[in-house]
C-alpha cells in the first residue's frame, strides 16, 4: 500500500535521505528508530507531501505522491499525521478541533461532523473533554486530541512523528496506549519513535535509520536481538 523506491531528499547541500527503498503493507505497523538527524521524520513528511523529494518515487495506494498532478489535499485525507509538538488548534474546542476538517474538507454536515468527532474523542478517552479548549488539556490529552483529529478523516494510514518525545514522562503511557489500541484495531501505521519498548512490542517490523540510509529492517525480535549491522548494534547498545 506504500511503496517507496530509491527516495532521495536534500535540503540544499544536505543529503538527508539517500536512496530509501521500503514497502509497507496494509495493516502493518512499522516502527522507525535511529538517532536525531538520521532522516526518520523527513521520511514521514515526504510520504504525505509536506516536503518535496529530489529523486525516486513514493506511491500510496497506486497514487504517485510527488506527481505534479496529484491532488495532495485529497491524498492527505488518507494519511493521518500526528506530530511531535501536539499542534492542537488553540482557538477551537476539542470537539471543533476534530470536527473542523471533516466538515470543511469532506463536506460533512455540522451535526454529522460533531457526532463523529465526539465518537472519535470517546475512542481516545477524551469523551468528557468535548467542550474544553486545548489550554485546559495536559500534553498527553492534547496528543490524544491530535490522534482523534487525524482519525476523524478516516485515514487508511497513520504517520506518527515522535508522538511522545515532547511529553512529560508520566504522560507518555496514555499516548502509547492509544497507539497500541489503534494497532490492535488493524490500522496501518508508521511510527517514528524513541520508545524502544513500543517498537519491540507493537510493531510488525522495525527499521533502523542511520545518516539517511535505512541500515536494517526486520521483525523486532531479529532487529533487537540479533542486529546485523554494526551501526544498529552501536545504536541499540546506547539506548538500552
Amino acid at each position, binding site marked *: 500500500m506504500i511503496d517507496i523506491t530509491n527516495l532521495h531528499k536534500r535540503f540544499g547541500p544536505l543529503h538527508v535521505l539517500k536512496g530509501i527503498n521500503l514497502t509497507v503493507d496494509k495493516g502493518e505497523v512499522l516502527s522507525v528508530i535511529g538517532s536525531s538527524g538520521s532522516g526518520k521524520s523527513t521520511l514521514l513528511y515526504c510520504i504525505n507531501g509536506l516536503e518535496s523529494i529530489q529523486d525516486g518515487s513514493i506511491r500510496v495506494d497506486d497514487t504517485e505522491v510527488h506527481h505534479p498532478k496529484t491532488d495532495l*489535499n485529497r491524498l492527505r485525507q488518507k494519511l493521518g499525521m500526528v506530530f511531535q509538538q501536539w499542534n492542537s*488548534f488553540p*482557538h477551537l474546542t476539542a470537539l471543533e478541533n476534530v470536527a473542523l476538517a471533516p466538515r470543511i474538507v469532506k463536506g460533512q454536515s455540522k451535526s454529522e461532523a460533531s457526532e463523529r468527532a465526539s465518537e472519535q474523542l470517546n475512542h481516545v478517552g477524551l469523551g468528557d473533554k468535548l467542550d474544553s479548549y486545548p*489550554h485546559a488539556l495536559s500534553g498527553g490529552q492534547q496528543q490524544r486530541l491530535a490522534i482523534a483529529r487525524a482519525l476523524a*478523516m478516516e485515514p487508511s494510514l497513520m504517520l506518527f512523528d515522535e508522538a511522545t518525545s515532547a511529553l512529560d514522562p508520566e504522560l507518555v503511557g496514555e499516548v502509547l496506549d492509544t497507539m497500541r489500541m489503534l494497532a490492535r484495531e488493524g490500522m496501518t501505521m508508521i511510527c517514528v519513535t524513541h520508545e524502544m519498548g513500543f517498537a519491540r512490542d507493537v510493531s510488525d517490523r522495525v527499521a533502523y535509520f542511520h545518516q539517511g540510509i535505512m541500515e536494517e529492517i526486520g521483525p523486532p525480535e531479529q532487529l533487537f536481538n540479533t542486529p546485523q549491522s554494526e551501526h544498529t548494534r552501536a545504536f541499540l547498545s546506547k539506548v538500552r
Partner: protein
Amino acid sequence: MDYNFHWQPVIGRLPDLLLASLDTLQVAALSIVLGIVIGLLLAILRMNARGRWTPLQWFAVAWIEIARNTPVLFQLFFFGFGLGAWGWHLSPFMIVLAGLSFNCAGYLAENFRGGFQSIPDTQYRAARSVGMSAGQTYYHIIIPQVLRKVWHPLTNQIVWAVLMSSLGMLVGYQELTGSAQYFASRTYRIFEYFAVVALIYYALVKLILMASRMLGWRLFRSEGGV
C-alpha cells in the same frame, strides 16, 4: 486669576459639536478600514520578500518606513499641499482620509506581520496534514489566531485614528476640533470649548475601548476573553 467662565455659548453649540464628532468618527472609521486592508497587503508583501527583493517589496517597505517614522502632520500636509504641487487638489476630507489611512496602514502592517510570525509553522502543517487547502488553513486556523494577537494593537490604532483626526483642523476639515476652533474664535470662549471637546474625545475613546473589550470577549472565549 480673574477669568470668568462662560459655558452658555458652548452648551448652546453642543448639538453642533456632537454632529461634528460624527465627522470625526466617520473619517477615523474609514481610515481604519482602509488601513486594515492596505496594511494586510503590505504585511503579506513584506513577509514574502525571503531574500528576493522585487519593486513591490521595496514599495511596501518604503510605505511602512515613511508612515511610522515621520510626523503624521507631515503626512497630512503631503496629501494636502504636497500633491498640490503636481496639480492634484484633494478636498479637506480626502486629505485627512488619505493621510490617516496611509499612517494606519503602515503601523498595522507591522502589527499584522508580527501577528503572522508569532503563529508557529507547525499550525500550518497540522492543518495541511488533515487535507485543508492553503486558503482553508488561513481562513480557519491562521487568521483567527492572528486576530487574537493583534486585537490590542488594533484597538490602539482605532483610538489613535480618532485622536489624530483632530489634525484635520490644520488642513481645513471641519471635524470636532475644527468646528470647536471655528465656534471658539467667534465667541472667544476658547478654554470652555476645548474643555468640552476634550470630554467628548474622552467619551468617544471610552466607548471604543468598551466595544473592543466586549467584542473581544465574544471572539476569544477560548482564552477567557481579552
